[in-house]
């Protein structure tokens, strides 16, 4: 187990180095010189050259990359000259808010999708099952921005149940403190996940229903309700755990579309705005963090499944 963890960690570091190198060189190729970006089109070439020299942007790109890595190791993610703020601070301000929004959506999705998927499997081919499957396809095929707009039109403009804009408070806990204003963003995020999870849960539960231990449980005289809750549920959830694990990083990185649609300041909105501002240090740091989260997410998912299912031995 320990060897496995260490080996996975070593591989993860290599993967992250690779990501950082690729992103760094790509941004270097596509972007104008940083001095031009920061000082604007009207700045004199001398001023731009001076800026670049002062901040070390005139050095060879490999040297710049190595010095960037050195800064990273000290926890310095660089500086946004546009916002005149360190990238670390910017990310910190927004990360919590993004995470809370996404997690709320994830939890809502799981709370709905797991029982729904199991119900569909137990009542396979019933009206409930067919309707739920049909809805899942529609939801899955609907782009998040369209779904968000429809929700706004119906629940905000027509019924006036929820506001169309998310809370503008800077607290990351706003999901809990102001649930009314956060309802539509959370539902928008949850909807697509519900569609995926419930179908996944359904097929996994169907697999498990065919296993012999279900028949054994029935032969004990257990009512169907207990067969499902005591025997089916945990085994049927194992594949979903893996799926959720691989999705967690994407969730933490924020939801670009929902955050911008509801004007909720989080990592996603920060990324979009930085893209428009050509604020490369922020883009670079954001991409790198996305990589870290993906690697960590897969790692955590493997460990979680191994803990839930004792048959899996984490070995070579």
């Amino acid at each position: 187990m320990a060897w496995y963890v260490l080996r996975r960690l070593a591989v993860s570091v290599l993967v992250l180095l690779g990501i950082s190198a690729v992103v760094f060189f790509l941004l270097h190729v596509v972007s104008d010189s940083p001095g031009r970006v920061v000082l604007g089109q009207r700045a004199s070439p001398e001023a731009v050259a001076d800026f670049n020299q002062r901040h070390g942007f005139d050095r060879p790109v490999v040297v710049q990359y190595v010095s960037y890595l050195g800064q990273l190791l000290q926890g310095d993610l660089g500086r946004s000259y546009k916002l005149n703020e360190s990238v670390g601070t910017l990310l910190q301000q927004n990360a919590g808010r993004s995470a809370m929004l996404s997690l709320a959506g994830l939890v809502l999705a799981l709370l709905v999708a797991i029982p729904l998927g199991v119900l569909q499997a137990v009542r396979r081919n019933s009206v409930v099952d067919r309707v739920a499957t049909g809805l899942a396809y529609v939801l899955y095929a609907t782009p998040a921005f369209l779904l968000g707009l429809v929700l706004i039109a119906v629940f905000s403009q027509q019924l006036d149940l929820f506001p169309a804009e998310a809370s503008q408070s800077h607290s990351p806990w706003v999901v809990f403190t102001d649930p009314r204003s956060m309802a539509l963003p959370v539902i928008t995020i949850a909807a697509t996940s519900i569609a995926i999870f419930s179908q996944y849960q359904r097929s996994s539960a169907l697999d498990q229903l065919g296993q012999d231990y279900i028949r054994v449980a029935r032969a004990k005289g257990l009512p169907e309700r207990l067969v499902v809750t005591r025997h089916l549920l945990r085994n049927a959830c194992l594949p979903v755990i893996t799926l959720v694990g691989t999705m967690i990083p994407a969730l933490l990185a924020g939801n670009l579309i929902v955050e911008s649609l509801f004007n909720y300041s989080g990592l996603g909105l920060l990324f979009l705005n930085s893209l428009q501002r050509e604020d490369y240090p922020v883009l670079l740091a954001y991409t790198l963090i996305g990589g870290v989260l993906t690697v960590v997410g897969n790692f955590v998912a493997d460990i979680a499944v191994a803990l839930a299912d004792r048959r899996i031995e984490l070995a070579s």
Partner: protein
Amino acid sequence: MVSIAPAPATERVLTVSDLSVEIRRGDRVVRPVSGVDLVLHRGETLGIVGETGSGKSMTGLAIMGMLPAGGRITGGSITFGDTELVGLPPARYRGLRGNDIAMVFQDSLTSLNPTRRIGDQVAEPVRLHEGLSRREARRRAEEMLALVGIPRPSERMDDHPHQLSGGMRQRVMIAMALVCQPKVVIADEPTTALDVTIQAEILDLLDDLRARLGMAMILVTHDMGVISRHADRVGVMYAGRLAETGPTPALFERTRHRYTQALLASIPSLTHDRGEELYSIGGAPPDLSVHDVGCGFAPRCAAATDRCRAEQPPLVADGAEPAHAFACWHPADGPVERTPARLAERPAAVDETSAAPRLRVVDLRREYPAGSDGWFGGRRTVKAVSGVSFDVAPGETFGLVGESGCGKSTLGRMLVALDRPTSGEVVFDGVAVSALRGRELGERRARLQMMFQDSSAALDPRMRIGAILREPLAIQGIGTRAERTARARDLLDDVGLPGSVLERFPHELSGGQRQRVGLARALALDPSVLVADEPVSALDVSIRSQVLNLMRRIQRERGLSSIVISHDLAVVRYLSDRVGVMYLGKLVESGAAEEVYAAPAHPYTAGLLAAVPGEEGPAEADRVPRIHGELPSPIDPPSGCRFRTRCPLATDLCAEVEPVLEPVSPTHQVACHFPLQTKEGAR
């Protein structure tokens, strides 16, 4: 229903009369059970025997009220005590299930919930039916685990199923079924997935518990041997009907139904005369979605007349023994009438002492890396095959027997160069194939072919049979496409299949037909060595004898050197000239088949033979105690003799010095410090 005289002074606990079941799947209606009558008395074991699709399992499930989706009882009644079970409200049925009527299923890796502790799984029925507290129920579960022979049950209570061996899992299954002390236990193929020595232990355990707890048992199995040793009365099922029923001795000694008679004749025995072809029933069981009027066995029956095809025979009592009844218009009276075909002996020119061996296996070893041992544990290796040597002469068949995990399949894969040995070599016609690579290996490998156990998994489901048979020829660049098709047709003809099979897909064929295709594919490149790994294990008895006869004929006609790998001692004996017995990666005994079976010198071989149910083993075997316990781990095998942990004769010497193969006669070797005093040995 026919009145079958009850055994005196015993109470009936379960009565099934005129039971019919149908299963509806879409437009297809299958009738797996038609008009079955059964009576079960307190304290007895009723065996229900039949092949796949005979309706034996469905009868058990009907009694449990657990028919599969689309299934329903269309007629008849099932009474348990005074309670009619057909039409019983579900809630009342659940109160009986697992409490008064329990079921033991075939062991599979998933028959226990993989994510729950075994103690909780065993305690569950007690909590449900008797409303005991968690602590009380766990105490009962622990007692029950002790009763079914789980060592140190208190430590095992918190184990998960994957931590137990197959035999132990089956004990847990039994504990789970019996924990509420039911009056009736239905055991559906309780030992089919287990090794023969474990099977014997489990069946003895069931017998013992039945007597101690005063239960009645229905033992559902395909294995006539199990029935003959463990059932008081038998019901033989065919095509959803009861063909014959009666007290076990009467049914075996004076078999009346033509199907029972043919079935018994087609089972290879340990003492079968190898010169005689096995009796085999032609054709296959009927399709139960087509509802014929006559006797279901008529199309395959040698004695069938027009009456059999037109009229369903009723179950009638035998004159001499009223408890013995059969449903046959032309009951048999005596053994199967036939003149068995003599099989050609091995060509005289082949003499293993003078001819160079076709295949030589020299000190072959194969190790696999295993998971590490806990946190920061060192790397471990599974020693699957640990130094095996033997020769196979041209035209000779060498049988490898042993229980699961003994390394016989790993060995088989190395013989045909599908796997590389860790050390040692496989020499084929003077060339060490185990060291070859690339093109040379590809060319040599064509001469070494393999026939697999599960042909439905070994044949590509999206390829037609014709394409499957042409593929090896195309890879080796033999002939034009037309020539290859002609060759495929010839191959099918050789294995007794019509040319129309060329256009079929594997799933359109029956299990027996697929196994024939598997053989045809192995023969496509005209190999000189054929390795058959469990060639008939997946087949029903009546189909098995057809395939066995076919293999014998092909071995002889083509002068093939073959290696037959099986856990089934009778199958190996029927096919093999010489046999090797494997235990935990080692060959413990080898020699001429007749000699090894008649006078086993290794205690393990003797124990294996004694454990085969329904066989009158050699007289010597009776003195050998049954083998107990389970196979030790191949990661850390016992020192000295690997069998010593289960051997009744083991001494300190066995733990210190590893015995090597030494001759007990010119054609018989054994690796044991204290070989059994066989007839040959005593002389």
